[in-house]
């Protein structure tokens, strides 16, 4: 899971404090204030719905990207396929685990 630290205004501390923003896949999962530990968390069901809703769009974008790559450099495209065929399901299952857990 990706985590970024930044400064945001905390409504509970009443001033700008350091927060950690946790991402699951492309989506914000949880934001925690370092000072008061107040956390804003997205329910797993909402996150999963968001993830599933965007999957068709991501699949279309991937197909478009693959087509573009195949046209630009067919040899490089073909040579990258075995690695991608193995990696993509792993990547998707990792994303799904981040979203659901």
């Amino acid at each position, binding site marked *: 899971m990706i985590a*970024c*630290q*930044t400064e*945001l*205004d905390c409504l509970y501390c009443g001033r700008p404090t350091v927060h950690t923003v946790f991402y699951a896949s*492309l989506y914000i999962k949880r934001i925690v204030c370092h000072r008061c530990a107040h956390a*804003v968390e997205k329910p797993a069901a909402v996150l999963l719905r*968001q993830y599933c809703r965007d999957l068709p769009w991501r699949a279309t974008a991937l197909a478009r990207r693959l087509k573009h790559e195949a046209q630009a450099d067919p040899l490089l495209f073909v040579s990258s396929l075995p690695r991608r065929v193995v990696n993509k399901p792993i990547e998707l299952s990792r994303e799904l685990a981040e979203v659901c857990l």
Partner: protein
Amino acid sequence: MHKISNVHKGETVFDQRSAAKHVVAIVLAAGQGRRMGLPINKIFLPIHGKPVIIYTLEAFERCPVIDEILLVGAAGEEEQLAKLAQAAHCQKVRRIVQGGPTRHASEQCALEALRSRIEGGEIDLILIHDGARPFVLPERIQELVEAARACGGAILAMPLQEEELIVEVDEQQAICRRFAGQRAWRAQTPQAFRAAWLLAAYDRARQDQFEGTDTAASLERLGYPVAVVESDQSNLKITTAYDLLQAERLCRHYGL
């Protein structure tokens, strides 16, 4: 209309835009993050995989009345901003300057960078915008530019909700003035002004050691007129955790 020659192709083209003076958008992206020694300035936080600042720049890229964008970044973040803008194909970003310790100081840095062009009459209007307001609509920017051309200065703002009330209190924390919904407006950015007025107002503010909470304050104190163009809640500024979540929802809503 200016006649310009294309020496490479031996053609002569007429560029209508070059006849009009420039409209420059200054996007303030200096933030606080790096100054506090934090790894990420909030304008670099990704929303759906894309940094906040790129959404902001894309709004100005899509707006035809904006000729050029000047980005103001925090010390040490200029290169990162340049790379992001280039990767996102933001062609209107011509220059990145280092900001100051406050918003007002960052505005002053940007105006100094444009001083010779303003004094030379090359720049007509300047818009100042917070980098952390990623969802300003290009149509709204266009309306703002039209209002600023007519009035000299204009800002985006939204009226308070009917049930909302703002009060001014004195030293004893007693209410001395009330501003009810529809009479009181929340100021937003972008804020647009005649470039010469803006430069004069900031020169004067420097002399008087005045620092306004927003750009318009420096002009209002000198009696320059500032019009209001109605905006809405979607032009939110990301300041709290809840704003970040709302930004994610808006991103989906606008299909960005």
